[in-house]
């Protein structure tokens, strides 16, 4: 299995899904983050929010590197999504399972990155599954079927390096298969 030396992966998702935590968990360098105090309703959810991007690097055993870019979650920064996605080879959408609007969020991000998903790989990570008992990943499968999208879906803890590495591994495996 051959790999390119450099991979660029984008991590996106709604506010509070765990994007910054995920990149922090997996980065082999001190991640670059651009967090500030929120000025809108996000303040009720968390004390900091990403205003530009997060950045980290994961070094693989074969010497290649994965550059990981995290997008800001707030809608008003969505102009960054297009900028960050240029040159990307894979997309991770992180979703907060405890939110009532989780499926609306999935639909929103799938639509926003539709062109990217058509040509590159997508993996979905679902965080906070322990906070809201439901029927598991099955419902996410069903929703993706409705959107006619095939992508791996994993339950993850955004703080867990192992879980986030699984997401990246699934992306890279699919990428190699192309």
């Amino acid at each position: 299995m051959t790999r390119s030396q450099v991979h660029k992966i984008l991590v996106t998702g709604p506010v509070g899904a765990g994007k910054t935590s995920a990149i922090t968990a997996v980065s082999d360098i001190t991640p670059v983050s651009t967090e500030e105090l929120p000025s809108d309703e996000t303040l009720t959810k968390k004390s900091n929010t990403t205003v530009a991007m997060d950045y980290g690097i994961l070094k693989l055993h074969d010497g290649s590197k994965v550059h990981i870019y995290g997008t800001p979650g707030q809608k008003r920064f969505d102009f960054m999504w297009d900028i960050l996605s240029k040159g990307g080879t894979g997309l991770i959408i992180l979703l907060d399972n405890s939110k009532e609007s989780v499926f609306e969020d999935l639909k929103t991000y799938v639509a926003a990155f539709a062109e990217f998903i058509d040509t590159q790989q997508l993996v979905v990570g679902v965080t906070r599954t322990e906070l809201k008992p439901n029927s598991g990943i099955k419902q996410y499968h069903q929703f993706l079927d409705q959107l006619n999208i095939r992508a791996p879906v994993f339950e993850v803890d955004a703080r867990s390096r192992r879980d986030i590495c699984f997401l990246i591994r699934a992306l890279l495996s699919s990428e190699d298969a192309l």
Partner: protein
Amino acid sequence: MTKLSVGHNLPVSVHLSSMSETTRAHLEYYISNTGSPLYNQVSKLETADCIILDIDYPGASNVFEERTAQSGFRCIFLVFSVTEIPNDSIVNILKPLTLKKLEDAAVKIAELLQCLAVKEATTRTASMDAPLKADGLGSIPTLTVVAALNKTTKITANLNKSNNKRSVYKSVKDRSIEIEAGTSLSPPKNPVFSRAAPTSRAASKRDLLCGSRVDYKTPLEKKHSPYSYAKGQYLGGYLAEALQQNKNNETALSISIPVLNLYLYVQPNINRIYSNKSIKDTKTVEQIFSPLKADEVKTHFFLEPNRAQIAREIKSDRGFAYSLEAFVWLSILLSAKGRLPTGFDPDEPIRLKHWPNFTRLENTPHCFEIATCWAQKFKSLNDVISELKLQASDVIAFYNGTSALELFEHNHKNMVRKRGLLDFLLRRSTANENLR
């Protein structure tokens, strides 16, 4: 190894093992400065009282397993993790790492070492005339096969979401399904078909999930007994069938096996299964993943949640909760052990509809490669084995678990349409009308 002596105090000798460069740099700086009264870093593993590792770092689990597998190994592990790992020889620090947590951990490690020193001294004194037993630090570490079904959380069964009454279960802690590598789950081995004994815990885990017999000859044929297994005779099969019957309702159901004193209560709507017995218990695992007779298994579908009955059947103070999906997956793997279900056609093209939830399921060997291959297009089992050049039992184990979760789809275009009597009459009737 460091000779333990009664009265062992700080600083603790530590060896930094598997972790990222960033974490290592931070720890080295801490130990050489403010942490110096508590920790003393040593470069040689053999001279360390404690090994520090980040369990989420790639390869860390293997390091842990290899060290603890060494004969006569005695050491404490200071483990950075997201959730607590219950083990007598582990001191946990839950992420994120803080100075306070490191300070507290140092004290715990020193206390643990003190206890070990006393125990060792007592053992030496008590067994002067008897040969010394190789006594480990506690229970055999069970990180070898950790299903990681769910993190340890308090689970409150919400039987009726619209009802504000207190649920039946006060709090049932999730238990990881952990199977000890040395568990003898397979029937007495036929020496003709057995491979050599596993030399590592990774190999033991593989034998547990994929079987230890000599691998199938490929390409596989549809008739491949005695290597096939009748899925319907095992707990995993009964459970899968019950869930299939209950698919449209998703109400609760129970499965009881009185001869084993095993009672399972299933809530598909919240992906939970509750057992009155712990799956950590080796004897329980051996019993419940062996073939069962049909009259030994009783299934009951609840039309409405019956709290009183549920409370009687599964007492909350002894209840063990697991992820239903992970329980089904693991039970099928442990029952099948790399064998194909009877009647399965290894040349039938199938495709992976959705990936298994690998972060919460016990990973079979090469599961990522197999999933990638099977997600692309319709392929048969024989196609995947030949394309990836893997052992047949590895691919079969993946197939068994994934099909139990109904994650495969069949190629309906290639399926010959079965014509029943009604269809025949309809076509005949249509043809007759056209002639008029």
